[in-house]
Each structure stands twice: as C-alpha cells, then as structure tokens.
C-alpha cells in the first residue's frame, strides 16, 4: 500500500548552497510527524516544498496519489509568523479562507464552520477584533483555526509552539487530534526541524 504523503529524494539547493539533500519520507494517514534539528537547517524549506510553495531542486512530493506541484488548500500551512491578514477581523480571516476553498457550502454552513473552529481554539469571543488587538499566541491559534477549517489533507505547522505556552499548545493539539487518528509515530531527523502534523480529512 502506498503511503499517504510520500517525499522522494527531495533536495533543495540555493545556488551552490545545499539546504536539503535526498530526503525520503513516507507518512501514513493519521500519523503525526515531528521533525527537529538546529536552526537554519532547512525546516521551513522542506515544509514549504511539501506545501508546494517551493519547488524542490530534485525529487518530488506525492500527497494522496497526486504530485504536489503548486500550493493549494490540500496542504494547509500555519506559518511561522501566523500570516493573518491584518486588515481583516479574526472572523474574516478564517471566513475568507473557507469561502475560497469550500465553495460548495451554503452561507450558513460556512458560518457554522468558522464558529466551530474559532471555538475549538478558544478565540471565538475575540472574533470581531483585528489580529493586532490580540496576543501573539491567539494569532497563532487563529492561524491554526484557519488551516483546520478548510479540511486540508495535511496540516503543516511551522514552529507552532513558539508563541504558545506549552499548556495551550497541548490543549489545541489534543483537541485537533481528537478528530484525528492519534499520533502513532514520531520521527526525528537530525537535519530538519519542524512539526508536520498529518491527518485525514475523512475522519472529521
């Protein structure tokens, strides 16, 4: 049986500087993978390749049988710096992603969905505020809600704990994982550092 997410011989060089060399990784549905390493070792680069934002120099990434060639909602990313749109409220930040990705839903279903995920990460009461009016940790939680709300095939979290205190992180991760088959393997690769949280949208 094929793995859900397959990373084959992925290398990435910027000029003569090689960041990633021959990365091979097979990840099954429902697995929770955490990759760590010293800073500057290519963690965000690999994540961005899996997300389709960066093209690998060699090799390929296959998600659910399809090669990842361009970014899309299948690989939802929670960026290191949250990347919420500062001119939109918390609610609108999630809503605009839902509207863009899940076009088939009715307005009411979309609202239900946004509400559900904002509640899940515990920022629903701040939904009318702009990202600049809430804390960094809350920004990150909104970014997580936005990523979860579009039913991605794989959820990519780039340093998701840096702004959250550990307790809140565990609460979020465990509440996300309650829809997800629980992590059954933890991988550590010496040269890469990021957490790659993988789950199947079907189990939602």
């Amino acid at each position: 049986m094929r793995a859900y997410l397959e990373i084959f011989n992925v290398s990435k060089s910027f000029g003569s500087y090689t960041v990633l060399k021959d990365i091979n990784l097979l990840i099954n549905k429902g697995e929770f993978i955490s990759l760590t390493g010293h800073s500057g070792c290519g963690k965000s680069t690999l994540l961005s390749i899996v997300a389709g934002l960066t093209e690998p120099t060699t090799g390929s990434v296959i998600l659910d049988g399809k090669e990842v060639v361009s970014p899309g909602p299948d690989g939802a990313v929670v960026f290191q710096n949250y990347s919420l749109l500062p001119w939109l409220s918390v609610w609108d930040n999630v809503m605009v992603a839902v509207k863009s990705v899940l076009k088939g839903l009715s307005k009411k279903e979309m609202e239900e969905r946004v509400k559900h995920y904002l509640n899940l990460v515990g920022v629903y009461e701040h939904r009318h505020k702009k990202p600049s009016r809430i804390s960094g940790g809350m920004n990150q939680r909104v970014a997580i809600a936005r990523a979860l709300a579009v039913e991605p095939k794989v959820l990519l979290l780039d340093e998701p704990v840096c702004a959250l205190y550990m307790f809140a992180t565990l609460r979020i991760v465990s509440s996300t994982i309650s829809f997800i088959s629980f992590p059954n393997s933890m991988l550590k690769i010496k040269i890469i550092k990021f957490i790659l949280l993988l789950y199947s949208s079907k189990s939602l």
Partner: protein
Amino acid sequence: MLTGFFIGALIAIPLGFLIGMSGKLRAMFNPIIQILRPVSPPAWFPIGLAVFQASDKAAVFSIAITSLWATLLNTAYGAFSVPEDYKNVAKVFGFSTLRYLRYVVVPYTLPFMLTGLKISIGIAWMVIVAAEMLAGGTGIGFYIWDSWNALNLNNVISAILLIGVVGFILDYFFGYLQRRVQI
C-alpha cells in the same frame, strides 16, 4: 480642479496596480513615467489646447496629467511590495485573482495609495492656479491675475491666503483618511 484630479486618479490607481503587480509592465512604463513626471504643468497646457480646442478642458487635462504621477508611483510601489507572507496565504488557500486583489493587494496598497492621493491633490491644487491664469475667464488663478491687472494687491494677497487655507484643508482631509486606514 476636482475633475482633473479625479481623472488623474482614475487613470493612476488602476495603472499603478497593474504596474506594481507585473514586472514586464513595470519595465515598460518606468522610462515613460520617469521622463514625463518632471514636466512642468504649464508645458502641458498647449498640448491640451491642441487636443481639446478649449481652454477649460486644457486646464483639466494639465491638472490630470501632472497630478497623476504621485498616485501612480505610490500605488505601484504598494502593489509591488505586498509581503511574501500574504502572497503565500493567498496561494495556500487558493484565492482567485479577484479575491487576492480584494483581500490582499488592495487593502495592503490602500495606505500607499492615499499617500499618493494626498501628494496629488496638493499638486492639483497648485496646478489649478497656474492653469487658470493661462486659461483665463474663471477661477481663483484668473482672479489673482485680474486683480493684479487692476493693481489691487489686497485681493491678490487675500486670494493667496485663501489658496493656502484650502490647500491645508485638502491635505488635512487626506491625512485623516490615511490615518483611518493605517493598520
């Protein structure tokens, strides 16, 4: 005056977005912009007269063409400098071009655009006086020239003060808009 300013803005804003977002257009338009931008307002007046055959339309034309550069360049700069992070958000969540413009490029560029408009309205207000002096017949520019011909310096100085105050109010209004959209 406002007609000229609005025509200028209507050309400058969309063109600014296009130039800011496309490298090719930027390379194409940049030399043209750099050459036409420093041209003094009255120099355009004869061209306006030749094209429109009417002095009031020529005045509007001069105002439009001299006031549009600041808006154009600022809008283009704003659209050009949309941070990679926001572009990635649009890519990851599969924003359509329209959604990308509406939720990313336009809101990000808005403060830059208003800075441009603020400079443009100031320029338009300065050009109007020069243009009216050339066009004759109406307006505060004509009034100053007319008063000078009548050797009425009191009126000239009152008109200068009035121009200054109106300019200040216009500037303040755009400054206010600018502060409103500041994130």
